[in-house]
């Protein structure tokens, strides 16, 4: 089966896809994009989180054929060349990365939270947004802190007009 889709702005055409294959497998094994991690293959850990038509999903639970003609965004698409995305920067600075296995999924999910949140999310909102992403190393505190930092950085960088509006 042939699957054609856009990943991080680039058109991909993939042949010989087995119809029961997941989007995660196609990204990692056929598109050379191993950023999204494969841990549980049952939607429990969130390490495979990607954007599918603008919404975050577990790539392990999307059938490859369902992504045909759709727009996918992975963690590889967030940095601008060598410059990390502010969310990635915040994870590094806050010490939110230990073994790093959970990091790509958390970065994508945190990115989604900050793109869609108006103002800075509360800790409860951050925990709720990241409830489907498991980390075995950090104990989560540094991850929450990283998201807080990224939110602050974003507020700081927002256009002046927006910030000063009553």
């Amino acid at each position: 089966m042939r699957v054609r889709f856009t990943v991080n702005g680039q058109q991909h055409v993939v042949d010989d896809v087995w119809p029961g294959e997941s989007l995660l497998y196609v990204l990692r094994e056929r598109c050379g994009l191993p950023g999204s991690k494969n841990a549980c293959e049952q939607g429990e850990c969130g390490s495979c989180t990607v954007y599918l038509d603008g919404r975050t999903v577990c790539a392990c639970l999307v059938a490859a054929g369902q992504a045909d003609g759709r727009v996918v965004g992975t963690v590889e698409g967030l940095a601008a060349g060598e410059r990390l995305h502010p969310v990635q920067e915040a994870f590094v600075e806050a010490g939110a990365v230990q073994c790093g296995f959970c990091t790509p999924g958390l970065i994508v999910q945190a990115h989604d939270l900050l793109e869609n949140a108006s103002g800075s999310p509360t800790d409860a909102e951050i925990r709720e947004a990241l409830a489907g992403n498991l980390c075995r190393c950090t104990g989560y505190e540094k991850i929450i802190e990283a998201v807080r930092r990224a939110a602050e950085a974003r507020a700081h960088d927002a256009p002046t007009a927006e910030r000063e509006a009553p």
Partner: protein
Amino acid sequence: MDFLRPVTWAEALEVKAERPDARPIAGGTDLMVELNFGTTRPTALLDLTRIDELADWERAGERLRIGAGVSYARVVGELGDLLPGLAIAARTVGSPQIRNRGTIGGNLGSASPAGDAHPPLLASDATVEVESVRGVRVLPIDGFFRRPKVNALAPDELIRAVRVDRASGPQQFAKIGTRNAMVIAVCSFALALYPAGRRVGAGVGSAAPTPVRARAAEEFLSGALDWAGGGPVDEEVGRRFGALVAAAASPIDDVRGTAGYRRHALAVMARRTLAWAWHDYREAGTACA
């Protein structure tokens, strides 16, 4: 394995008639787990995510028709006022990623006794609209669940939508699990009040081979509440209601909990949801007065 991708509902029904062996796939949050672990190998997958009308809901007066492909995220975002019970339940499903993808139709398709959409749909008298090239059937939801993970669909049928009236009174849902997210219910309970008809609906999840309605509990409570005066619920009424809800279940011991715990928890949830819903009912009464 074939991958079939109809783009219209009519085409999907034709494909299903020709290939009754094809497994429908919507959000994939149940089916992909089975595929990833090799526990199922259907001869074909029938992708329903390209059929736009399936992923939408519509309203005609008090009647709602929720397409099978409507995700939990959309129920939470769009139906909170119209169907608060279902929306509260949807909010407890999995994680944001699962709610973005998982659908009401998929929940009914899997027909797990623990499916979180089922108790609120039972409590709110929903019907399930199923269709094949032979025609449409509208099934009352309490006849839809046949056995654990088996529903009333014929091999050539697909679930088109859920039909349900918008809430005419307070609705509540409660679920027991080990954490706040990513939890298959140990047991769950949904309550709906119908002030105009002076009756209640009660749905029980994860405590019997299928989701069930607690009929005796409904009848008892409908007659025992002070609808006209809006007076407080007598403690004994709450206890009796809880006991009748627990009696409607036929739970088992499993890894998530014992039968005894489930009965106990159901009675507690029934009392609590009643207290919350009755509070809302009285508030609404004073607001109008």
